[in-house]
């Protein structure tokens, strides 16, 4: 295969079965293009997923793929990556798959820092099972199982990841390939567990749930794209985030000659865990939605440590015949 691969080469012959207009299509396209861009080797790339609409993803990627069981993709991915650390392993999960039934495994794959990319397609709903509320659904979400609105407080995927000691946390939007693709590339390059929350529109059961900050027309005012070393500006530079030293909270300031000088706007430091915490928990609506790489602080990956601390570096240096004879052996004649 000498010809460079195109996005098409990463598509399979399987008929894609998502509902027309589902955000998963856009993510799939973006992924296929991204992998072609970075010249990924399909033979060394594996998509591992759980169960859900989102978890159908591997069937449509012309690489290796394993559609496993509900919530457990991180565990399968861990065994796979440990068995063959050469592989580029992607985990695709949903808000139900990753944070309900699989919350435990997500916690552990992140804290262990397995070298993998975890893509959580957050549509704030259980798509596949026809629209029940999920652990990311906002209070009051009406669904077949909560006809008068859900009552339990949601979890924030990014804050959960940070709490789990994830060392790479990013956010993107399904249909915004321009910004999502660099995030996917950065996640892929990161040696460790890279957690990416992708806001995904479930057009059937939770239509336009993220419209407040996703709508193209108002995006400039409702989104803030975090870039390491750059001031946290939005609204085409007219507004920014500033740390209020008295309240220890972020606040929105007008930026300009007669307002806050740009030098006073908070500069994004992706290695700052406290800042990451603030950005990941900014109240929705009041503030723009932080997107891009919000936190990145590398450390040794689990798979690396696993091989490094293995007594013989993963090599078979001994023989069972000798091991049998360790300790006290006696002869009978």
């Amino acid at each position, binding site marked *: 295969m000498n010809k460079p691969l195109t996005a098409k080469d990463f598509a399979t012959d399987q008929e894609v079965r998502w509902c027309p207009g589902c955000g998963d299509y856009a993510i799939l396209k973006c992924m296929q293009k991204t992998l072609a861009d970075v010249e990924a080797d399909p*033979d060394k790339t594996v998509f591992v997923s759980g169960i859900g609409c989102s978890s159908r993803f591997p069937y449509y990627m012309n690489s290796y793929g394993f559609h*496993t069981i509900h919530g457990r993709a991180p565990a399968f991915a861990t*065994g*796979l990556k440990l068995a063959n650390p050469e*592989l580029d392993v992607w985990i695709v999960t949903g808000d139900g798959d990753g944070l309900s039934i699989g919350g435990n495994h997500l916690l552990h794959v992140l804290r262990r820092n397995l070298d993998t990319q975890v893509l959580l397609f957050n549509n704030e709903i259980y798509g596949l099972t026809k629209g029940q509320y999920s652990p990311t659904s906002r209070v009051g979400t009406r669904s077949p199982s909560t006809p008068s609105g859900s009552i339990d407080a949601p979890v924030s995927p990014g804050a959960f990841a940070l709490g789990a000691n994830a060392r790479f946390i990013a956010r993107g939007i399904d249909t915004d390939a321009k910004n999502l693709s660099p995030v996917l590339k950065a996640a892929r390059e990161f040696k460790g567990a890279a957690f990416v929350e992708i806001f995904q529109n479930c057009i059937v059961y939770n239509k336009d749930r993220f419209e407040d900050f996703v709508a193209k027309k108002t995006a400039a005012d409702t989104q803030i794209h975090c870039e390491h070393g750059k001031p946290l500006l939005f609204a085409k530079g007219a507004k920014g985030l500033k740390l209020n030293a008295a309240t220890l909270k972020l606040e929105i300031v007008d930026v300009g000659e007669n307002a806050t000088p740009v030098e006073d706007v908070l500069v994004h430091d992706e290695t700052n865990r406290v800042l990451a915490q603030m950005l990941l928990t900014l109240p929705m609506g009041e503030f723009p939605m932080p997107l891009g790489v919000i936190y990145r602080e590398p450390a040794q990956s689990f798979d690396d440590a696993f091989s490094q601390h293995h007594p*013989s570096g*993963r090599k078979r240096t001994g023989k*069972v015949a000798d091991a049998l004879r360790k300790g006290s052996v006696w*002869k009978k004649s």
Partner: protein
Amino acid sequence: MSKITPENQSIVVRFAGDSGDGVQLLGGQFAESTALAGADFSTFPDFPAEIRAPVGTTFGVSAFQINLGARRISTAGDQPDVLVALNPAALKVNLPTLPKGAVIILNTDAFTDRNFSKANIAADPRQTGELDDYQVIEIAISTQTLEAVKPHGLSKSDAEQCKNFWSLGAVLWMFGRDREPIINWATKKFSRKPAEILVGNVAALNAGHAYAETAELSAEIPQFVIGEAPMEAGEYRSITGAEALSLGLAAAGELAGREVMFCGYPITPASSILHHLSRMGDLGVSTFQAEDEIAACCAAIGASYGGAIGVTSSSGPGIALKTEAIGLGMAAELPLVIVNSQRGGPSTGLPTKTEQSDLYQSVYGRNADAPLPVVAAAGPGDCFDAAIEATRVALRHMTPVFLLTDGYIANAAGPWELPNMDDYEPILTNAVNGDAANGDDPTALKKTIWNRDPSSLGRPWVAPGASGLAHRIGGLEKDIETGDISYDAANHQAMSELRARKVAAVADFIPDQEVEQGNSKGPLAVVGWGSTHGAIWRAVQMARDEGLDVAQIHLRWLSPLPKNLGRLLSDYDRVLLPEMNMGQCATLLRDKLGLNVVQLNKVSGQPFKITEILNAIRENYPGAKQAAE
């Protein structure tokens, strides 16, 4: 007292004391010396369930039992002939198991009012007449020990710790054993400790020996003569089931030329396998302690998917959690070895006690039609071969395989003739067979992935990374040829049948069932599986010595059953099936062979006694007087 040669050439000794008394070391070293003396033996440790039970209590009693003989020994023994009790609690707990006439060696220093009250003993048993039927030897073991180690400058607590060595010295004398090998072992063991520890313990050992030898007392202390047991020429070592199973898995990896990836989550009595394997890295083994049993099973399947031999292990409650993932392993046609160290249940049940009650779970316990191969180890040493066989089948047929062991096998030990690794056939893996790149057929690649061997129905093992073979797998029903998702009715029928045929096909590769003792037809066969082997073996041997025409048939494969089993069993008038559950194998034989057996069920958490099986043989022997008559 003169030297005693036991009538049946064997003797059962039980060491019991407080958890902190070093009873396990004492027993282990006595077993070691037994091995060197050439006798056969079988040991079983009996630990308290509590980690640090209060000193002196009955639930803090730790014991070690050994059955040793100048003949083949198959169990740790029904009843102790000799009990060494280092405190009153140990006496109280073990007294009910002693036969009349047993020898009891007591540490009188521990027989104080304080210890009586800790063990809830109302009156000194030496005064109540409870011990009248036994040969009681009272020794102030603690005093004697302190006396012996006094010159060596040990702290009081270190000095007291030496009483297990003192006791060992006395017992070595009772059996006419050398102290030399024990001293050599201790020299190694204590090499990192302050020098006086070794000196003190050796002094205690020698003092115990000398004490027993002293003329006036040796009139009281019996000496036993147990000669060498006839065993095949070869190299031997003592091994527990957990260790043999771990080595067997490593051997399977070596035979297959693949890394073994063992993924587990701690649970009694399965944890020891994880502990052993985590020290076998140089044998091509890696271990991963997952966040729970589900993750452990999934990680093992992930590892198998990646080309390693995925192994997961647990006990019943953990196996229950793995169930869904095991179904996926089966649907995706990936190899996996699932080790179940069975314990008493249901629920948390009796974690430290043994049972064989997960047979239904292994054979039938999954959603949908999901048959799997199930193999059971018959004893500690047999775990080695069973692990190799389980792996061989998993890789040949590309399927999860259950490997059953239990709490008894895991901890019991006995001499094991070291296998010769050259005697084992390599474990072959299924290579790609077909032209994946056939340009004329767009489905050529997929068909290659699912191109199953016609005899084993195992598919090629294609791990990610293999060039030009990228494909997708999953738990949705798949087309029998291309592996594409398929909801087609006829295809699901065909796939369900294929999965059943695959397990049935294992029977083409396993040996016919053999009769281990006795004739291949007759009035009565005793059929067993798993850890009941030793007790059944001895019971059948004794029954045959009595002139009863009884056969012993021990099953290794429970699923599928050996092809000839139905015919073989139909040639006996009656089949007796002892098992440590309420009749699960009996159900299996009724289901698969239409055979009704006489059940002998025991679910007390304790292994079968030989006499229990022998009595059942006598009672059920055709023509015998039934107990009810």
